[in-house]
């Protein structure tokens, strides 16, 4: 089974709140939410600001760079497609804009990964609806 088919049960069910985010990843942009009332950024995207409950939120493009806050190397998962990816890395990444996102760390082996490692976003085309943001160590060609 190819990756797109195996990943299908785990792919985002896009809704009105998330549609702009997934439309942007197709164009290789990582959007976060910025509140013009309190000035704070947030992610995952909500319509209202979770900090001050204002409706005055707008989409902003993040620079796509950040650092690993924590990570794990998954060695056991029976569910496809993950069982065929073992071992793989899942990380919490603090973007430069001050929001925390979760993704796989790709294009490297687990031994080079550590807390604080600078990473950058790349975009993984899955199908015509979904392009997933992933992260890799920064300064790669």
């Amino acid at each position, binding site marked *: 089974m190819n990756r797109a088919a195996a990943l299908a049960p785990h792919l985002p069910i896009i809704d009105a709140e998330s549609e702009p985010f997934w439309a942007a990843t197709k164009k290789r942009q990582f959007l976060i939410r910025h509140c013009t009332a309190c000035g704070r950024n947030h992610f995952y995207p909500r319509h209202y600001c979770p900090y001050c409950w204002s409706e005055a939120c707008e989409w902003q493009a993040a620079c796509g760079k950040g650092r690993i806050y924590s990570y794990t190397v998954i060695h056991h998962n029976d*569910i496809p497609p993950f069982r065929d990816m073992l071992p793989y890395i899942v990380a919490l990444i603090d973007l430069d804009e001050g929001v925390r996102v979760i993704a796989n760390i790709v294009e490297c082996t687990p031994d080079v990964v550590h807390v604080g490692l600078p990473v950058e976003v790349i975009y993984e085309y899955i199908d015509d609806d979904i392009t997933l943001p992933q992260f890799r160590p920064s300064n790669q060609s």
Partner: protein
Amino acid sequence: MATRVCIVGVAESDCGSVPDKSALQLHQQAARAACEDAGLKKEDVDGLFSCGADGMHPLQLAEYLRLRPSYVDSTQVGGSSWEFFVEHAVAALRTGMCTVALLAYGSTARSDLKRRLRTGDPPPAPRGPAQFEAPYGLTLVGKYALAARRHMHEYGTTSRQLAAVAVSANRWAQLNPRAFNHGKPITVDDALKTRMIADPLRQADCCLRTDGGGAVILTTEERARDLRNKPIRVLGAGEAISHRHMSQWEEMPDLVAVQSGRRALEQAGVTPGDIDVLEIYDAFTIMVLLTLEALGFCDRGESGPLVEAGALAPGGKLPTNTDGGGLASNHPGMRGLFLLIEATRQLRDECGARQVPKAQLAVCNGTGGYLSSCGTVVLGA
């Protein structure tokens, strides 16, 4: 002064591997035994506190038990729900919304897996906020591993120290004939040889998956005077929640037990140094370290060395998870109720070989969800 509330009855159902009973049957078996333990009848029970994996769980449970309670609570914040229930039961009993509160639980988590009725780690449906996590294959154990890795980074916590948590629980289990791992002692080196599940957590860092049920009965101190057992007083309780998804736990690895514990200890008018017995939810070894620090039993970063020095084990200065815990005694899906049962038995001086001498004060701290919810209860003999 507000009415004092007491635990007056505790019981477990059959635990371990129970392939021949349903989850509802385990609820009833435990509830019946807890009533018997308290010297109360079914008819006395007018408050029902329980939750399960299914929606409308209290309807199903009350129907099966044929109870018509005047007060119902089915707060579902994971395995810590039973510590939350204690705080809620205190409020309900004080205000007269019920007079006898039954906390009940039952699960066939182990047998369901063996019968392939469910998977151990169902992936989240990728809708709503979960759509930003589901595509990346973060397993249940992986969620706890994220916190463990961060703790290691901040404080130099080691895999040996995590293993020492498992060994401490296992040593208590050797003193408890009902513990699942009774008769199966392990060493730190044994633990470190188990297979990696989600780095840095190995199999020995993960709890058991057993069947089992339990029940706890609370009532007012006045009512408790006429009952069978020495009442165990609820001296303080607190609850707090933080997140559903790991990326939203901004203060990782600080548990919200910081808040729930402060409230519970302040209400009780005690400090960590006063506590004789600790029952800490231990679905994974890292939870014990995070809880010790959040409740103030040691400074941040000091829990690893403390456990490695044997403080939690039999004979240590902080006897913890004295029945063997979720790591070595029982963990039927959710474990919070069993913390209350063991603490009550310790304070009643009923624990035989594993009895902590002169135990007068106990703290139970449930942690549920994904290190997301904490309920702290202080109990006194």
